[in-house]
C-alpha cells in the first residue's frame, strides 16, 4: 500500500513539538531480541529511529484504536501495543525503568485522534456556554482561519502565528507546568474573534470490524515503511 512516506517522515522530524520522546526497547518482528530505538510520539503516530540522531525514522506505529497494556515478559518494564484487528502485529516494548514505563503507557493510550477530538469538543462546548452566559455577544472567540492545518505557510495573513495573539491577548502561564515546552501556541487570527471550526462528525472509531476498510488500512500502514526493511537487514546481519 502506498503512503506519502516522505511527508510522513517530514512530520516525524519537523519542528512541531513531539508529545513524548525517549529510548525504548522494541521487540523485533522476526528476530525476537529487543532492540533499543529512539521513539518520538507526535499526535497519533509513534515514530521510531535507529538512533536519536538519525535523520529519518525506520518505522511508525499508528496508534488509532490501539490498547496499551502491561505484559508478561522476561523483559522488565514491558508493555504491549495491541489492535483489534487479528491481522495486526502486536508491538512488544520495554522501558528502562518503572516510571518511564508508566509514563509511556499513559501517553500512548491517550494518543488517539478521537481522544483529542473529544477533549476539543468538550472545551468548545464550555467556551460556548461561557460566551452565551456573558451575553451571547462576541460572535465567537478567535480561531484558526485559513487552509493550513498546522503549517506556517507563505501567507502571513492567515498563517498561524507562533506565540499567542499578536499582542492582543496575553499568554497565560500555567502554574506548575514546569515542562511547558510542548505545543506551539497559535493565537487567534489577529483581527479576530471567531470560533475555531467544528471538527467533523465521525461515527466511532474506525477499527472495529475486521471487514472494515479502516482496520485493514491501519494494519497495512504498520507493515509499511520501506526503511523497516533496513532494520530487518540489520537484525539479520546481527544474527549471523
Amino acid at each position, binding site marked *: *500500500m*502506498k*503512503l*506519502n512516506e*516522505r*511527508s510522513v517522515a517530514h512530520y516525524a522530524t*519537523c519542528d*512541531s513539538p*513531539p*508529545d*513524548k*520522546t525517549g529510548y525504548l526497547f522494541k521487540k523485533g518482528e522476526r528476530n525476537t531480541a529487543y532492540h533499543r530505538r529512539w521513539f518520538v510520539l*507526535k*499526535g497519533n*503516530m509513534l515514530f521510531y529511529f535507529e538512533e536519536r540522531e538519525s535523520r529519518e525514522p525506520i518505522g511508525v506505529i499508528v496508534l*488509532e484504536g490501539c490498547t496499551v497494556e502491561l505484559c508478561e515478559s522476561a523483559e522488565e518494564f514491558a508493555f504491549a501495543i495491541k489492535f483489534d484487528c487479528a491481522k495486526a502485529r502486536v508491538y512488544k516494548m520495554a522501558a*528502562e525503568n518503572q516510571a*518511564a514505563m508508566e509514563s509511556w503507557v499513559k501517553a500512548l493510550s491517550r494518543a*488517539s*485522534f478521537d481522544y*483529542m*477530538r473529544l477533549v*476539543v469538543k468538550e472545551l468548545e462546548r*464550555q*467556551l460556548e456556554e*461561557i460566551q452565551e452566559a456573558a451575553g451571547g455577544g462576541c460572535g465567537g*472567540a*478567535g480561531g*484558526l482561519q485559513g*487552509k*493550513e*492545518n*498546522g*503549517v506556517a505557510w507563505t501567507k502571513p495573513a492567515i498563517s498561524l502565528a507562533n*506565540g*499567542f495573539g499578536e499582542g492582543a*491577548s496575553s*499568554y*497565560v502561564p500555567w502554574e506548575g*507546568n514546569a*515542562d*511547558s*515546552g510542548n*505545543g*506551539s*501556541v497559535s493565537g487567534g487570527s489577529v483581527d479576530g474573534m471567531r470560533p*475555531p471550526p467544528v471538527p*467533523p462528525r*465521525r*461515527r*466511532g472509531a*474506525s477499527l*472495529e*470490524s475486521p*471487514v*472494515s*476498510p479502516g482496520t*485493514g*488500512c491501519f494494519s*497495512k500502514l504498520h507493515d509499511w515503511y520501506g526503511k523497516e526493511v533496513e532494520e530487518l537487514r540489520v537484525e539479520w546481519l546481527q544474527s549471523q
Partner: protein
Amino acid sequence: LPGTQPTALAHCNVDCTSENTDCVVVKKRLVKLVVNFLFYFKTDEEEPLGALLLEQCRVEREDSQVFSIAFLDEAERKYLFECDSEEQCVEWIDSIIKASYEFMRKNLIFYRTEIHRLTGKDPLEQYGILDETRFQVSNGLPLMPKDTSSM
C-alpha cells in the same frame, strides 16, 4: 462500538502526478477520510491502494469542483481531486483541513487559553489531564524536541 460508516465517500479523480506536470493522469478512485488519513481505493475494492497522512499539508481550491493537497516538504507537488459537485468540493476541503491532529491541538490550546482568560480557571483541571504534554501551551518559542523519557 457502532459499525464503521465512512465519513464521506465520494468518487473523486485522483491525480497522482509524475514529475512532468504536463502529464496528468486522471484516475477514478474512492476516497475515504479516516482520522488524519486519506485512503484511496480502486472503486469496489476492499483494500486501499494507498493513503495520505494529512499532517503538515495545505488544501486549496483549484477550481469550482477541484481541490488540491500539497505537503509542506514538497510544496510544488499537488495531489488533485475532482469532485462531483461544487458543494462536495467545499465539504471535502473543510473536512480535510480539520482532519489533522495538529489542527485539533491548536484549537484545543486556543480554547484552553481562552477559557482560562475568561474564567480564571483551567478547564482541563476538572478532568485531571492538565499536565498531559499534548495539551500544553508553549511559551511561544520554537521548541526542540526534548527527551521526556524520564517523565
